[in-house]
């Protein structure tokens, strides 16, 4: 019997622990597929974060390292500089990348470090139980903003792609989402482009993925998908922010 659809060999056989409706599984699958399709699994070193996706070190079928909260871009820099022939990607959440790891993210981007960051933005802290994230929307409820984010007391969210786009360094910045099949296809295309730029030694890429957290948001998976389209994507507009390959030569 011919297998028409199955687990890509870029993912291990280990059963993933993510909640129903969570976006991590989709993005994991995309990366798992690309590791095989682009023939880079055997030279890849992946960096697993702190947060829900800490177990990414079990799920990607390539060499993996699990690192301190927010420091993935620094670890990635160390690996890539020590072993430039390897393909280096980090997988990070919003608390990891946009709170504690802001400095590491900005400076890796400013150096145009030849690495790829997959940035999962679900506007909340998932692993620790739904607290306010740097990406939590104004008015959005979390366990540390139970009446909704008050921008006077808790400040404004950080738009990471827009922030990094203010730097000269980065090569490629794009924001995508995994709420619909069409957007999932776009996400795969963006991640593939980012991976290719690293293989071509172009430098720093960050793909921000708007992703569902039904558990953290206290909604059903269907409602979560709708919320991305109707609310989240309005605050975090999707699209290509930077692609130096397309700049006038």
């Amino acid at each position, binding site marked *: 019997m011919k297998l028409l659809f199955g687990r890509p060999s870029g993912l*291990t056989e280990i059963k993933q622990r993510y909640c129903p409706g969570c976006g991590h599984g989709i993005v994991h699958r995309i990366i798992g597929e690309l590791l095989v399709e682009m023939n880079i*699994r*055997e*030279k*890849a*070193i992946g*960096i*697993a974060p702190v947060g829900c996706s*800490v177990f990414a*070190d*079990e799920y990607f*079928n*390539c*060499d*993996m*390292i*699990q*690192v*301190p909260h927010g*420091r993935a871009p*620094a*670890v*990635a*820099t*160390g*690996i*890539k*500089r*020590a*072993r430039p*022939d*390897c*393909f280096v990607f980090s997988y990070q959440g919003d608390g990891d990348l946009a709170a504690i790891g802001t*400095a*590491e993210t*900005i*400076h890796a981007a400013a150096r145009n470090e030849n690495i790829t960051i997959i940035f999962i933005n679900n506007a909340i802290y998932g692993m620790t139980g739904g607290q306010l994230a740097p990406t939590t929307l104004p008015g959005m409820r979390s366990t540390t903003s139970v009446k909704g984010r008050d921008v006077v007391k808790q400040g404004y969210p950080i738009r990471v792609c827009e922030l990094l786009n203010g730097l000269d360094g980065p090569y490629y910045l794009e924001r995508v989402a995994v709420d619909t099949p069409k957007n999932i296809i776009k996400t795969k295309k963006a991640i593939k482009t980012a991976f290719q730029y690293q293989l071509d030694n172009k430098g720093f890429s960050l793909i921000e993925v708007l992703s569902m957290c039904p558990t953290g948001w206290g909604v059903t998976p269907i409602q979560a998908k709708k919320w991305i389209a109707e609310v989240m994507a309005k605050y975090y507009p999707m699209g290509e922010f930077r692609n130096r390959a397309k700049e006038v030569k």
Partner: protein
Amino acid sequence: MAEKELMYGNHALVEGVIYAGCRFFAGYPITPQNEVPEYMSIRMNEVGGVFLQTESELAAINMLFGAASAGARAMTSSSSPGISLMQEGLSYIAGADVPVLVANIVRGGPGLGNIAPAQSDYFQSVKSGGHGDYHTIVLAPNSVQELFEFPKLAFELAEKYRNPALLLADGLLGQMMEPVEIKGEPVDPKSLPEQDWWLTGCKGRERRVIRSYDLRPGKLEEWNWRRWEKYQTIIKNEQRYEGIKIDDAEIIIVAYGTSSRVAEAGLRIAREKGIKVGLLRPITLWPFPADIISELSKRIENFLVIEMSLGQMIEDVKLAIEGRSKVHFIGHPGGGLPNAQEVYNKIVEIRGKK
């Protein structure tokens, strides 16, 4: 005899690191070790290595984590406040059993303190400055020659035991000039055999994972007990010290690094006056040379500990002595230096108490 070259301490450290085959340096400027990244930026360029001036000490130590996990001999240098920032990374690196080298050119603390030489980071270095149960191997040079020699030894020990290693020096050693004999063969980093835990891309083999966590019930405990066994092996095999005139000594001074140099000068004055003083200089601060101190305490009534701190190593000395002898102390916290006359006076005072 090999040729001797007059070298600046911080430069000797750089030369020693490169001699040891290290081709990866990431660091952030901080006084009194700025000559390390400055000179390293030139030398790494010359030898085809990597030099990165980072955005913070946090980034530097994590770059080491990555580079060493990918098989590089990787090193950073900093001074006290910067080393504090590196403790998070060191805990992860220790928890992941990855060898790196960190040099601490200690200054006066706590807080911003001052930029004068001090030994007040002893606790942080030998008791694990970050969270969790772990130890770092700690070597304490007391000369520019040893600043050149110890990086190689530190890398060898770090790699043998898959454990981070520290060089604990101070601003005086870093800033002074002394003749250095270039001994031994330089290490060609390409000659270092690939280890079965390096992350290199999984071509032709099973994938490898480097991590410091295990959430399964009881598993972390097993893991940490295995690490404890490793620590016991290091304690058993790697205690290093220098003994000066200890065989006939009636009083033993225990001092490391810069303090040991002053102690030796005080010892010379005492010997000229016919007082039999010996010096036990710990070279490894962890593992602490407790065995020899324990042995000596069976016949020596008085020990004198000299530290440029409020007294930190003195606790390990007392533990080794187990109450068999009296332990006296000279301490200079906050960047002050002891002097030879002061050491001699203290010795006279100790004898007077007999």
